[in-house]
């Protein structure tokens, strides 16, 4: 008997040691199991890739419009460029949350939408004609906030045309930042159209490096930091106690509410999954085995509350902060309730480890 037990110990140790590499990507697609592969495929094929493709066509038009204006600095070209800037900025809100893969590697979101813009250093760079837009230190001198400043920051269309039209430094810079927005977007879109899509979809593992875990961390972080803090929290001073309307998005064009709602709706659509399974269905699947409250319904209700409250907001959130900031603070509180549902309850239900902590547990 002792002999057997010794053999068993050895066999077990060997078996257990082998099972250390348990980050396997076994499909496990039986019918009574929620299919994460299908969810990832839905995310990639029906949401992420089409969103990037749409946005890319906008950034192409943006680059073209900027070049048009540079070649022919007239009022009609300026108006076309201004309109295209708004269209592209709006479309950007549908991809901003996908900071994973190439976008993460490139620091895509920071290059396209770090605000408020640093006006004085932007002006001095334009005046000198020397700049390197690929430096992280130039986040605040490019992207949509820089376009916003250049296209709307000088006041009326006439004043803007006068400022930009007669000066090659300005039109060169406009072209340079539009080109960069388009180039970065092409790069990210191409990676999704290429290998990255499969890498993403096939990484169905349950470890902290699996796609669902990683994406969920980014997705929730986006809601908390970019949507809640960035668009509402900082301008209203909910986080600092001091309102600073100058921190609103699209400060000069004054379209901040539209951008906020576009971003929020995209986030909600993603949660609901559009044409296929997403978090909503995943939580339903897990919730069906759990007593207590229906988490999916709580989250959907909170999304409705956020949208209902936002009807009270001025189209320009900067003006809203200046005229009646309590409405902004209410908006923040509603968003905050969703943060807790997403970050605490949803992450717990999905058993998603917070970020890539890979140390031992009990």
């Amino acid at each position, binding site marked *: 008997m002792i002999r057997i*037990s*010794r053999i*068993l110990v050895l066999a*077990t140790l060997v078996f257990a040691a082998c*099972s250390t590499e*348990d980050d396997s990507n076994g499909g496990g697609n039986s019918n009574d199991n929620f299919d994460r592969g299908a969810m990832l495929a839905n995310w990639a094929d029906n949401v992420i890739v089409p969103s990037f493709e749409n946005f890319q066509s906008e950034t192409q038009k943006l680059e073209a419009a900027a070049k048009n204006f540079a070649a022919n600095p007239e009022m009609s070209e300026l108006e076309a460029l201004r309109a295209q800037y708004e269209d592209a900025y709006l479309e950007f809100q549908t991809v901003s949350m996908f900071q994973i893969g190439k976008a993460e590697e490139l620091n895509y979101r920071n290059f396209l939408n770090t605000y408020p813009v640093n006006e004085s250093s932007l002006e001095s760079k334009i005046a000198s004609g020397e700049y390197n837009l690929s430096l992280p230190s130039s986040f605040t001198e490019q992207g949509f906030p820089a376009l916003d400043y250049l296209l709307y920051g000088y006041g009326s269309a006439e004043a803007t045309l006068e400022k930009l039209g007669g000066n090659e430094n300005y039109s060169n810079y406009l072209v340079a930042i539009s080109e960069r927005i388009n180039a970065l977007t092409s790069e990210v879109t191409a990676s999704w159209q290429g290998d990255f899509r499969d890498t993403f979809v096939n990484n169905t593992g349950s470890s902290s490096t699996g796609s669902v875990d990683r994406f969920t961390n980014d997705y929730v972080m986006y809601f908390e930091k970019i949507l809640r803090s960035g668009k509402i929290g900082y301008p209203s001073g909910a986080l600092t*106690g001091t309102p600073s309307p100058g921190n609103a998005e699209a400060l000069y064009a004054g379209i901040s509410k539209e951008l906020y709602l576009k971003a929020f709706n995209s986030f909600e659509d993603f949660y609901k999954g559009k044409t296929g399974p997403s978090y909503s269905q995943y939580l339903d699947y897990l919730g069906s085995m759990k007593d207590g409250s229906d988490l999916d319904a709580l989250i959907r209700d909170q999304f409705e509350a956020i949208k209902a409250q936002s009807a009270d907001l001025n189209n320009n959130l900067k003006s809203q902060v200046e005229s009646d900031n309590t409405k902004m603070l209410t908006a923040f509180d509603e968003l905050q309730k969703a943060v807790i549902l997403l970050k*605490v309850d949803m992450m717990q239900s999905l*058993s998603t480890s917070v970020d890539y902590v890979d*140390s031992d547990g009990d």
Partner: protein
Amino acid sequence: MRFSPGKYLKKNTEAAPLAVFRLFFGIMMFASIVRFWLNGWIEKLYIAPKFFFSYYGFEWVKPLGDFTYLIFIICGIAALMVAAGYKYRLAIVLFFLSFTYIELMDKTTYLNHYYFISILSFLMIFLPANVYFSVDAFRDPAKAFQKIPNWCVDSIKLLLGIVYFYAGLAKINSDWLFRAMPLKIWLPSKYDLPLLGDLMQQEWVHYAFSWSGMLYDLFIPFLLLWKKTRFPAFIMVIIFHVLTRVLFPIGMFPYIMIVSALIFFSPKLHHRILKKISGWLKISKQRFDNSRTLVFAGLKQQLSLAVVSVFFIIQISFPWRYLLYPGELFWTEEGFRFSWRVMLMEKAGYAQFKVVDGETGKRFYVDNSDFLTPFQEKQMSFQPDFIIEYAHFLAEHFKKDGHKNIEIYVDSYVALNGRKSAPYIDPEVNLLNFADSFEHKTFILPFNDEIKGL
């Protein structure tokens, strides 16, 4: 047949089981240290963070920058010396001190397993684990003994028994048994395991695991003690721990427990193991089989027995200290640690700290990622003693930055075992009015549910 302590203390047994235990313990500890290092965890957990959470009364234990590696080197070498039985007493003291120092540096990384290693190595200081099959005994035949007092081996069994039995007792609660929590959250997320993945989705599996886990923990010490059930019990030990290894990120612990359980077997098995090892190492095992019996006498015996007795009285009573606190243990975590409450909770939290100028009313929120790693933030967000320590740290930090009349408040939410998240700390309370202590923390909001059981 009355049990007589005097007679019991005079009983002797073979030293081989304890020697085997020492050898494997040392090797596994060395492997654990190497694994920890290779995983980059020394850097990640003890060097990179800007702030470390201290245990009450051990605020002076901090990582030493790059010298932290030195502590791990000392610990690793000590573990090897323990394995070899070379300058054993010095080695095991060094191991205990360095390992415990490492664990005290930041309570973020607290695990019951680490606490187990700490107290086990403390106990081993007082056991003659080096009198047989060791370098010490090889070099100095005067220190070599084939037999030792029975209690020396039994004390290891008792400690293992306490760990299992208390872990079993802790599982007798309504969340574990009647809601299958937290296994119901954890198991379905293992959908990608080969063979087991689909099974993990079944509700009956969650309940089966919960109940059998409870029964296993409660009864395994007794099944190992009783000769007739020992072998099947050991098979169960292997299956149980391998399963936990496959299902959870649990590191070296399963191997340590499997190997430790060998101590329940008769000396015959241990002699065979040592014979095999002697063969590999080409040393003569006979040299140790000198038939001499180690006798503890006089002061030495009294001192060793006194320390070991006090040690076990503490071990047996300490896990019950939670009864002295009001409120739900899982919610307040007052008296939760050091009590073999393993895998009982899935808890997640969210804590947003607000720094307020008490005079002007000006306020701002803290970005926790400025000060804490994601791991630390996670642990902090649902443990009150972390929250209070962090609040004081924030006050110090912002005072240095020139802020005045600082008050610290926290908006926090915690979800426990699948319940909807609920407010956790009273948001109206200035945390600076409280210092960490063993007293009940009155600023924890009540738990709006009931978990029945021990």
